[in-house]
């Protein structure tokens, strides 16, 4: 579901960039202003965080989760892998604050370790897919013609592909492990990023200063890194905060379909799934990872919305 939203946002943005209405800063053909765009973006984000408490709290939550994930091995109360069959599916006690799972393993410790997988699954595929999207978008925008046509049709194929099915197919094909999940979640989701970067490139290519730069023989690389990419950054940041939560949730869906994280390591999605059988007898078992997941994803969503308010160029005052 969230995929459609991303697609829509990307379409929306691509259209706006193409349309390049009067509010748009880039219409002032001022190369210096273009470069400083990046600085103003950071400034706006800072201002937004100051005024938007929810986004601020979200950011703190995300940082806290990242810290837990990084230092998990140092702060876990018990060995998350140690099986203790006589003490399986027990409610919270002083020793096991969130109780134990179906093997008698400490849920709190597993939750802390699981945050690593969940975070990585959120971040890595996002970075990969956006990387692919940026490169292909630039190539399409710069080359135009046949190359552009082919890349954009490829993007159509990716947009049309049922994503969960594709993820299942990939994991069936290359086996089930974390790497598979990265590939499965990133390989078809680059299309939206590519559309935006392409639109941005096309628009800038027509600008006099870029044309001038090209004509006097400035290297393409310079143009890309100095002018085009900085202009994409705000959109990319927003896209990033939309991709991450949707990837985290996709992994939980994959766990439900049996192709998520692999034991004995665990992700929050897998924990929710495995403990859901015990909803009646040990509700904490499924509620704790579920709520953790909800909070993390919600935090990403809130932060993303705040960022969008702050940096979406068409929304600024």
């Amino acid at each position, binding site marked *: 579901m969230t995929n459609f939203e991303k697609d829509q946002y990307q379409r929306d943005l691509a259209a706006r960039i193409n349309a390049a209405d009067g509010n748009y800063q880039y219409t002032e053909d001022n190369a210096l202003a273009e470069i400083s765009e990046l600085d103003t973006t950071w400034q706006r984000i800072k201002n937004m965080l100051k005024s938007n408490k929810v986004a601020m709290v979200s950011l703190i939550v995300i940082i806290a989760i990242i810290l837990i994930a990084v230092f998990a091995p140092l702060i876990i109360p018990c060995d998350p*892998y*140690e*099986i203790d*069959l*006589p003490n*399986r*599916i027990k409610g919270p006690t002083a020793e096991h604050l969130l109780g134990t799972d*179906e*093997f008698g393993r400490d849920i709190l410790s597993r939750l802390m370790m699981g945050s690593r997988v969940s975070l990585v699954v959120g971040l890595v595929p996002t970075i990969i897919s956006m990387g692919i999207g940026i490169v292909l978008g630039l190539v399409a925008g710069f080359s135009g013609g046949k190359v552009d046509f082919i890349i954009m049709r490829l993007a159509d194929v990716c947009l049309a592909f049922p994503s969960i099915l594709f993820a*299942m197919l990939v*994991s*069936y094909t290359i*086996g*089930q492990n974390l790497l598979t999940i990265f590939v499965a979640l990133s390989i078809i989701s680059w299309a939206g990023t590519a559309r935006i970067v392409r639109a941005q490139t096309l628009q800038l290519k027509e600008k006099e200063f870029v044309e001038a730069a090209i004509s006097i023989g400035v290297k393409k690389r310079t143009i890309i890194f100095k002018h085009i990419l900085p202009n994409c950054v705000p959109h990319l940041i927003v896209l990033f905060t939309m991709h991450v939560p949707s990837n985290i949730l996709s992994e939980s869906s994959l766990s439900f379909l*049996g*192709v998520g994280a*692999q*034991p*004995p390591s665990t992700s929050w999605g897998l924990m929710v799934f*495995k403990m*859901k*059988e*015990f*909803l*009646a*007898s040990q509700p904490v078992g499924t509620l704790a990872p579920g709520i953790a997941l909800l909070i993390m994803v919600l935090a990403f969503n809130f932060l993303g919305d705040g960022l969008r308010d702050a940096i979406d160029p068409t929304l600024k005052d």
Partner: protein
Amino acid sequence: MSKKIIALLLVMVMVLGLAACGGSDEGTTTSESNSGNNTEKTFTDGYPQNYLRYVNSEDPSTLDVMLTTGDYMVPLNIYDTLVESTCDDEGNASISPALAESWTVSDDGLTYTFTLRKGVLFHNGEELKASDVEYSVYRMMDPERDCVNTDVYDMIVGASEYLNGEADSIEGLKVIDDYTFSYTLEQPYAPFLSNLAVPGGAIYNQKACDLADEAAGGVKTDSKFGVEPEYTIGTGPFQVTEWVTNDHITLVRNNNYWKDSVPEYAAPSTVEGIVLFTVGDSSTMKMMFDNGDIDIFDLDNCREAIGTYRADATLGSQVVETTRLGTYYYCLNQQVEGLDNVLVRKAIQRVIDRQALLDSLYYGTGIIANSILAPGVVGYSQLPEIEYDVAAAQDLMTQAGYSESNMLHLEISQSSTASSTTLNINEAVQQMLKQIYIDAEIVQVDDATWSSVRSQGGMDMYQTSWSADFNDPDNFIYTFFSHANAVKRGFNYNNEEVMDKVEEARFMTDTEARLKLYSELEEQIVYEDAVWVPLFHLQHVFVLSTRVNPETFTPNWAGWSSMCFYTLNFNK
């Protein structure tokens, strides 16, 4: 000010919107107690009260039992076979007459002559004749069809040739008169009768099948038999009336059922029909049962609930266990590095704490296995126990040259769609193996990949179970340790002597000597070669709703997970 009013109005719109979709059913919802097992629930609205409600996790692929080796639930209730396998409470199995009233076997063990029961009617009113039996055999072996249970008949003279298109008729099948016919076998085959009792041995009505073929325009593979209820005709205690894909199948009682008039079989019941629901998620199933939406809950789908139901004051007595003629085991691949060493295999057998697994994951519903055959299977014998002994296992591994610093890496393969307990066992065993310097990795692949890798002998080890299709040691031993199957089942078994003897045992006519040989082979395979890690013989556990009488819940044959509900009855 007006801003605030607008905002309030909008919030109200939203709340109303929510209420409209969430609350508008209030008027029609019947107020029911939450005690569970109330029979008049909304879910089954539209079904008469005397219908038994059952839930399956998957929609059957077909109701034509010749085309499936697994979807037996409906076939067992709508068809009959010539003979039936039954298993008493002590686990003694026997063959009893069904559509065939009696039979004789020639002295050379080659010719079986059957006499059909008279007056047996198909659901379409036709009487069962020997010609229907003949048709059923030809239908199964028809090269134009895609039948998969051809092994029921393939030992009849000329049957395989007919299947391969090398003969126009099956020589060994003779119809003598309307109620008498005979099968002649290529060589004496001890389990032949047991084999006829499998669901695939169902007898169809020629007229009904022809109609079903016609409805498909004569294309035999598109036959409507087993697809559309009105063409799916058998002699069984129930008849299919409705099949809504991925939702439910409705069966109604056959009031002309032949068993009703045979005193030793008759089981008068008030169950007028059965509704088989298809629900893919085990948590959903459990909630449905707790809510009284279903009458029989197969706890294979939710083992975790066994403990809860047993402890329940009212439902405790509704938990029934049936013998499942099956064995849970680990397969060890004899051809991979590490496992090619018998010491390692023996160590693995000893380090798995089966009692702990049985008690915790299966709530003790079963017994520890030490053999390949399961109790209740002909030829089952108690073999000495494999003791759980970590120290001894460590010694064996040390002898084999492994230590903390020289760990053996193994992969435990499992299908990602296997039940959650398979993963649970594997996770637990993974930890147990750590104690004997084995660093095991659980590799989950999808079902199709799993079967394919296994049939090429490419897995280190895997856990699964095997239950009897027909009651004979051959169904176990031959399946795993014959020349034809040693690689296919993933053991890569290489003890030629044993495999030769397995072939030999198939066709021995001296029962006593035959069973003794099987027992010796079993001991060799489990204790000397140690490729088979026996785990448990589990009971099949069900919980019944309070309106179902647990006394009448007697699955006639427990080898399959499915059963016939003919004998089942409600409480008075």
